[in-house]
């Protein structure tokens, strides 16, 4: 037995059954009740919003002898014949397959004859945008001299392809994308009728993926049903739609929040490896960003959230992330979505987007502008106006909510470091290493070329062969290829000051630069690692429930892994074995030994800081 798709079984037979288009169906019903129908209609709107259904119901209603409140009875002979597509006076034409002049002339000729059985002849021309120019002209002639008792209903998803001369001779109805609530209500009704159980959250997921199309929703629902055993589960809904769990979204957002590019990239890789759809991922992220924005401004109105489930982590995220960051996130994702549309390199676009998102505040307040494509500008405009609407919506929402702003980095006052004659300042270096983070280092390496560009010619000559090798919020270790330049850089106060102030402009804080030669660096680093390894091992028993304070927070991702970016050596490897933090994926994070080591290392940081 072939299985009948839900959207075919449950095609609306009454105006009341068309989901989410009340304004249109009410107008049509009123016209029918008052006998004031037009001789030509144009139904436009996205796929699956009820255009063709409305046209067929209209054809029934206008011919039904038992019309009641503008609805057809669906039981009389005429109604039933139309439903089955067997009434000669209701003619459905697929303009995509019959787009020539001949076909339309044929309609014109036949339209002259009075209806045979019904009161009105109704021509429903679907996909009308596919008509050829000649056919449109022929159609126009017919519309100019409408035959008696003939009604044309033109339906299209692409109204911009319809000549204005045609549009002006029709009464136009724009079908809207169907709201989530309306889609969920209709699916609930159908599932109840079909006696199929469902987990409520699953319908939310299906409806979201349907993007306003009822037919899409029912297709996805069908599929979710077929994957399971008589119950629509959240798991199957996620699987069919390729959607992400909220946990994953939150994880990705915290990578953005903490400028943790590496984490962001590895999450992305994990998500794509699971077979999630790249486009769905971007869409989910955009919707989730919007929900965070909305919730931030009006936590009391959680019912207007589109996708998010309000729980502890969601609330925490909404408090931590700034609304500027959210607007930027949405902007970057919108651009990515647009660019990704016509490419086979969706994964690369997402990687670039991930870098941009996690580097958002690190470089500049606003991300790089990308070239606008004329062809897509319409879509962009639409998105921008949506964003604008959202902003307004947010402003009108309860104002009294105390606003939460982004967690700001702690004070960045550089410590005084002894900067005498050149000789590596090992204690200062150790101090930096104690709180060094990979993010700080990457951030600095990111802006390093920019920094060099800002220096004077002579200063640049000194710094040209330099590389940041480790960094904390307060200190920066720079290695020099040439001893003489290292010496020079360390003793040139103007240079050190200039670097500080330029860095302040570039990244918002000014870590103290400590210089070291490329030759010395591996040894100093290796000593440090050895020293700390012992300390760590000696402290394995000592447990602390202390949370690192604000200043340590940025450092908590392990100062060990930042060292990895330099060439590996024995010291590094031993530490790496002990604390494989950043390189490890999520699974390893759950490993208790690793967690312990991280805690320990966190504690270590606290102690070094405090002395």
């Amino acid at each position, binding site marked *: 037995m072939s299985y009948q798709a839900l959207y075919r079984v449950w095609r609306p037979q009454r105006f009341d059954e068309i989901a989410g288009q009340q304004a249109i169906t009410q107008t049509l019903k009123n016209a029918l009740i008052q006998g004031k129908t037009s001789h030509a209609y144009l139904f436009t709107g*996205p*796929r699956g919003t009820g255009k063709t259904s409305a046209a067929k119901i209209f054809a029934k209603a206008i011919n039904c002898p038992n019309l009641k409140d503008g609805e057809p009875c669906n039981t009389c002979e005429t109604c039933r014949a139309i439903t089955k597509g067997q009434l000669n006076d209701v003619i459905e034409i697929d303009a995509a397959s019959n787009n020539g002049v001949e076909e339309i002339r044929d309609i014109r000729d036949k339209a002259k004859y009075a209806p045979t059985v019904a009161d009105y002849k109704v021509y429903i021309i679907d996909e009308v945008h*596919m008509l050829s120019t000649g056919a449109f002209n022929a159609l126009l002639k017919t519309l100019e001299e409408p035959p008696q008792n003939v009604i044309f209903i033109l339906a299209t998803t692409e109204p911009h392809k319809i000549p204005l001369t045609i549009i002006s001779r029709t009464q136009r109805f724009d079908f809207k994308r169907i709201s989530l609530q309306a889609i969920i209500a209709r699916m609930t009704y159908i599932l109840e009728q079909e006696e199929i159980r469902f987990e409520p959250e699953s319908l939310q997921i299906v409806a979201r993926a349907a993007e306003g199309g009822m037919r899409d929703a029912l*297709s996805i629902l069908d599929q979710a049903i077929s994957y399971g055993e008589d119950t629509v589960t959240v798991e199957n809904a996620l699987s069919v739609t390729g959607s992400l769990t909220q946990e994953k979204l939150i994880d990705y957002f915290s990578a953005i929040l903490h400028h943790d*590019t590496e984490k962001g990239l590895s999450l992305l890789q994990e998500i794509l490896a699971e077979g999630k759809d790249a486009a769905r991922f971007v869409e989910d992220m955009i919707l989730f960003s919007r929900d965070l924005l909305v919730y931030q401004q009006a936590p009391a109105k959680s019912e207007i959230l589109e996708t998010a489930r309000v729980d502890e982590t969601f609330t925490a995220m909404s408090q931590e992330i700034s609304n500027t960051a959210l607007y930027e996130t949405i902007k970057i994702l919108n651009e990515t979505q647009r660019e990704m549309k016509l490419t086979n390199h969706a994964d690369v676009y997402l990687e670039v987007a991930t870098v941009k998102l996690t580097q958002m505040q690190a470089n500049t307040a606003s991300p790089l502008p990308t070239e606008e494509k004329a062809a897509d500008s319409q879509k962009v405009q639409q998105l921008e106006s949506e964003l604008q609407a959202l902003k307004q919506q947010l402003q009108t929402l309860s104002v009294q909510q105390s606003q939460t702003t982004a967690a700001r980095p702690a004070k960045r006052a550089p410590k005084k470091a002894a900067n005498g004659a050149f000789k590596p300042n090992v204690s200062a270096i150790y101090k930096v290493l104690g709180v060094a983070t990979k993010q700080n280092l990457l951030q600095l390496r990111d802006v390093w*070329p920019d920094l060099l*560009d*800002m220096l004077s010619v002579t200063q640049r000559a000194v710094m040209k062969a330099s*590389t940041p090798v480790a960094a904390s919020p307060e200190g920066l270790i720079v290695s020099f290829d040439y001893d003489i330049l290292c010496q020079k850089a360390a003793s040139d106060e103007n240079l050190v000051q200039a670097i500080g102030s330029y860095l302040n402009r570039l990244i918002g804080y000014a870590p103290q630069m400590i210089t070291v030669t490329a030759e010395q660096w591996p040894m100093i680093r290796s000593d440090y690692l050895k020293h700390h390894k012992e300390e760590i091992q000696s402290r394995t028993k000592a447990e602390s429930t202390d949370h690192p304070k604000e200043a340590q927070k940025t450092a908590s991702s392990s100062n060990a892994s930042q060292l990895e970016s330099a060439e590996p050596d024995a010291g590094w490897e031993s530490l790496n074995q002990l604390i494989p933090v950043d390189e490890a994926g999520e699974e390893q994070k759950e490993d208790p030994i690793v967690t312990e080591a991280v805690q320990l290392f966190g504690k270590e940081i606290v102690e070094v800081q405090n002395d």
Partner: protein
Amino acid sequence: MNEKIERLQPRLLKQFQHILEQHKLAHAYLFEGARGTGKKEIALWLAASLLCVNKQDGKACRKCVNCVRVFEHQHPDVMEVAPDGLSIKVEQVRDLKAEFVKSGVESDQKIFIIEDAEKMTAGAANSLLKFLEEPDGKVTAFLLTTAKQRLLPTILSRCQLVHFSPLPKPILIQELEDKGISQNQAALLVHLTNDIEKAAALSEDETFAIQRELIWKWFKWLTKQDDEAFIFVQTDLLQYFKEREQYKLALSLLLLLYRDALKLFYGQQADELAFPRYEQELRQFIAQKSSKQLTEAIEEILLSQKKLESNVNAQGVFEQLAIRLMQKLSKPLSSLT
């Protein structure tokens, strides 16, 4: 055959077995995923399952006369349509529909499989719409595509969408190594295709080896910001990359190099690289680069891909890319407020 599906798509195989057992196969599917992920294999297996005279729990026996003919592309009630040249034309869809108006040659069950469905012209796609929605008689449709975003939304909304994910790269690499392909070579190949056979063929292609070397040379010229990088396009590149698909290959190879650089920049494992053979050189390359420069370079290449897609002259695209990459990678943008 089932072995191949089992290897490529174990999860989908289970899912469809379940669906067949429940008699819940839908009438229109869109199978979406990269080449070599088993879309056609599953479509044929489902077609056989519908026509099999000796079904086992709703599934194809693979032995009966119907099954055998389906797998040999000989069954009269299974129609397979593929692009005629660059596109699937409206006439092809019309022929298909005409074929289906007739009753099934041997049964009332009919199946059509459209490969590269995204290549349907607007006319072809539109004329398929009504048919997908209300096919006459018992018709099951399988549309296969590598780029679902190029299909009309109205087609998408009439199909059940099934995503075919590629095999994880480490597994693909292992399979290639089992075929005697070197690890370095395998790492690159799996970044270019998911199709084992195609990858194996490529590994023996001498031109490909030359092409790969050329792109590496080009990359080095670009890194040195040597004018040679510009001249190189005409003197060398275009001698070995001669038509559309190859132009795209050239950009893909270059893209992979910069992407590797970005991956190294962010400390990802070396075994995820497409060019592990150049790891050391790439590490030197990133030492003086910012991630912004790297992402901008990647974006430039992606933009060039798009230009090629819209049929801009290849030499122009390559030369412009060379200039812009050299600009991007030399002059850091320091336009700060």
